């Protein structure tokens, strides 16, 4: 072979690599959004995690905590530490490093040190089986699968075969039925899910629209590229029907688009009182801007129900959970756009232990989301402790019988017939707010929680989520009475009063 041919071959190889990377980047995006469709996962990732990238200092060390290797409990962590999902990886790093430091500083697990073996799956889903095999060969007792590529049909059979305890972190499997003892063809009994389920999230949003807002009609506009299978649509229809809402229109757009006029025209004809948007932040912002130029921006509940069209944007999917759409949409982004969130990711509650550990061991500030991988880690260790063994089947049984534990954030647990940590009561509504100048002026005035006041969480950011306490308060109190007390006492979240006669406090009229 001549040097020219060799050079050309090298170029070709590099191109193949790049094309592969590109293709998988798209696939990653598609997959990520699908995971978040009608649910929480991407909201979590998009919102607090993107904020995390902007603020957080990254001191990622690849995730492998040095320590004694002889007598250790090894736990695998799979996440995208590089590529387009890197922002997830950095949160995972911060979380697991802080948690492991805390665990080892307080005696480890039964005297044994905890060691993390982190594997970067980047953006390539085919890395999943490779990562899995590598972790198995290193003798891990369980795996945290953190929104990593490869938690897919090619890896799941391997997990099922080995009965490997896997905690799915941030992944929304999109269906409780795929988790044990569901009837689906899912990964089997050894997989547990910490984050929330798309259908639950959509149901909470629908209940909020129907019960708290009193809306009767709802419409959806979603990205037909990212949700090419229409999974989000199915969930949307089902949960709308369950809440007694009439669907007046379902429209699509495409990722690459900048014009939504035709679709919004059609939606406007039916005047749905609230509009669900499913898409990435750029498109969400584009739609909201288009509503703005049509003078159809949401103002408050009465106008949403009025004769002219001012739909309230209620988010189920990624676009509305990602605060960056607010910056993009500028003045057209109105206070009152709501998204469903999970309570443990609640505004990066400063009271969560993970906040302190990150500061103490890593000299880092949490940015929201760190509590979840750490809790996943605790879950596996709890299973090991309970089983008194690292044998997979016994650890799984241990997790199923762990009861409730409290580690990095709130108390949670799994049971034999419930392999998902969160119930509907663990979900909260959050409202996207404008930063800097604070919220828009409304009449009557709208009161924000203390997180927006000087020195608190969102002071420096342009926009961020605020916990809307009231809509889900009862359920949240059922699930986490202490946490809700603390939140209300600490004056976090918007404060609304429900009078004895069932009417709401003045401040509740907006939203």
């Amino acid at each position, binding site marked *: 072979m001549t040097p020219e041919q060799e050079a050309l071959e090298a170029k070709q190889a590099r191109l193949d690599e790049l094309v592969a990377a590109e293709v998988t980047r798209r696939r990653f995006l598609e997959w990520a959004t699908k995971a978040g469709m009608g649910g929480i996962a991407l909201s979590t990732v998009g919102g607090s995690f993107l904020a995390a990238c902007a603020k957080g200092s990254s001191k990622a060390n690849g995730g492998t905590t040095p320590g004694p290797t002889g007598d250790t409990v090894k736990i695998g962590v799979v996440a995208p530490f590089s590529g387009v999902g890197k922002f997830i990886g950095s949160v995972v790093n911060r979380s697991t490093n802080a948690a492991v430091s805390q665990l080892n500083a307080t005696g480890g697990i039964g005297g044994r040190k905890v060691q993390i073996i982190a594997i970067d799956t980047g953006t390539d889903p085919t890395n999943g089986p490779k990562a899995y095999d590598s972790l198995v060969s290193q003798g891990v007792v369980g795996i945290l699968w953190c929104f990593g590529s490869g938690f897919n049909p090619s890896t799941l059979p391997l997990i099922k075969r080995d009965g490997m305890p896997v905690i799915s972190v941030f992944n929304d499997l999109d269906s409780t039925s795929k988790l044990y003892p569901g009837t689906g063809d899912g990964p089997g009994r050894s997989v547990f899910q910490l984050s929330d389920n798309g259908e639950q999230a959509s149901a909470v949003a629908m209940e909020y629209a129907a019960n708290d807002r009193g809306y009767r009609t709802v419409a959806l506009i979603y990205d037909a590229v990212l949700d090419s299978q229409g999974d989000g649509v199915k969930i949307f229809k089902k949960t709308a029907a369950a809440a007694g809402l009439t669907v007046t229109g379902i429209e699509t757009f495409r990722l690459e688009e900048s*014009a939504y006029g035709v*679709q919004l025209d059609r939606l406007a004809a039916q005047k749905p009182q609230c509009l669900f948007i499913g898409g990435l932040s*750029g498109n969400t912002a584009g739609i909201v801007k288009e509503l703005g130029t049509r003078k159809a921006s949401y103002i408050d509940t009465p106008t949403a129900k009025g004769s002219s069209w001012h739909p309230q944007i209620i988010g189920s999917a990624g676009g509305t959970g990602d605060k960056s759409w607010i910056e*993009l949409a*500028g003045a057209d982004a109105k206070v009152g756009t709501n998204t469903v969130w999970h309570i443990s990711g609640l505004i990066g509650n400063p009271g969560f232990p993970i906040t302190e550990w990150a500061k103490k061991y890593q000299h880092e500030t949490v940015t929201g989301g760190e509590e979840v991988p750490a809790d996943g880690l605790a879950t596996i260790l709890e299973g090991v402790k309970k089983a008194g063994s690292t044998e997979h089947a016994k650890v799984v049984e241990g997790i199923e019988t762990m009861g409730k534990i409290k580690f990095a954030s709130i108390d949670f647990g799994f049971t034999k017939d419930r392999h998902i940590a969160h119930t509907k009561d663990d979900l909260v509504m959050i409202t996207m707010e404008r930063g800097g100048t604070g919220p828009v002026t409304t009449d009557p005035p709208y009161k924000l929680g203390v997180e927006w006041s000087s020195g608190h969480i969102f002071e420096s950011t342009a926009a961020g989520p605020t916990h809307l306490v009231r809509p889900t308060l009862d359920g949240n109190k059922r699930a986490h009475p202490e946490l809700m007390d603390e939140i209300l006492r600490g004056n976090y979240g918007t404060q609304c009063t429900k009078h004895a006669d069932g009417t709401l406090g003045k401040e509740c009229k907006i939203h």
Partner: protein
Amino acid sequence: MGKFIQILVSTVTVGSVLALVALGYNLVFSTTRIVNFAQGTMLVIAGYMAYAMTRQGLPIWLAFILTVIGSAIIGMLIELIAIRPLGRFDPATNVGWILTTFSVGLIAVDVIGIVIDAQPHALPNLAGSVFGWKASIVAGVPITLTDIIIVVSAVLLMFLIEVLQNRTMAGRAFRAVAQDRQTASLMGINTTRTVMATFALAGALAAVGAVLLAPKLFVKLENGDLLGIQAFIAAVLGGLGSTRGAVVGGFAIALTSAVVKTVSAGAGRYEPLVIFALFLAVLVVRPTGIFGTPYVEKV
């Protein structure tokens, strides 16, 4: 009526946008006979450049001018990195440029993702209002200043480029280099510099496009791939190398997509299918595109 206006507005604005980007492909193709697959990336780079400058507190008009200059330099760099090392070659038989322009584009997007960030951003509008006018609503369809600026600038730029290519010595030199680089050099034309100049021009055009589009599409990494591919189709559909072709191609795609979307709510899913079918049909009938000139064989 509203539907008609909506289709019209959507076609004209989206079409102008596509035409602008397609022009970038054309410029480079017309001098080098290569398709610069990094064209979409230049749009992304320019957008992030403008964003980085406004973040530093520069007013948008100044950031715009600097971005045009900066993006022209990026264009030259792409030529230097992706094309120049290939040496002298015949683009028809040596297709290394496909690899190199693609690679440079992909690498650049990843570099932006790492160096600046991967998040979408908004840019301030170039003009908030003209004579106090910001937007009007015609038959329920809003027409904004941004729409008008995009359309007017696109038309103006296309006119300027058409004049440049056909009425000036530089334009003639561009076309001479495209047809026969050796002979062009015998005319005293510095062919290396000419090729670089077209890349610079394509870069400058990308910068104009990026800033104009920002109010509608924002500055985001996906713009390169998504817009780049559609604009490439527009350019080929209209006839690569033809300015009029870029406009017609851009508008044809925008019209098709607006009409498809208007048919019904579910039809949006079939948009790419219809666009590609149109693309194929046109190319079967006219392999050189609508305005493409068949290549005259050397006698």
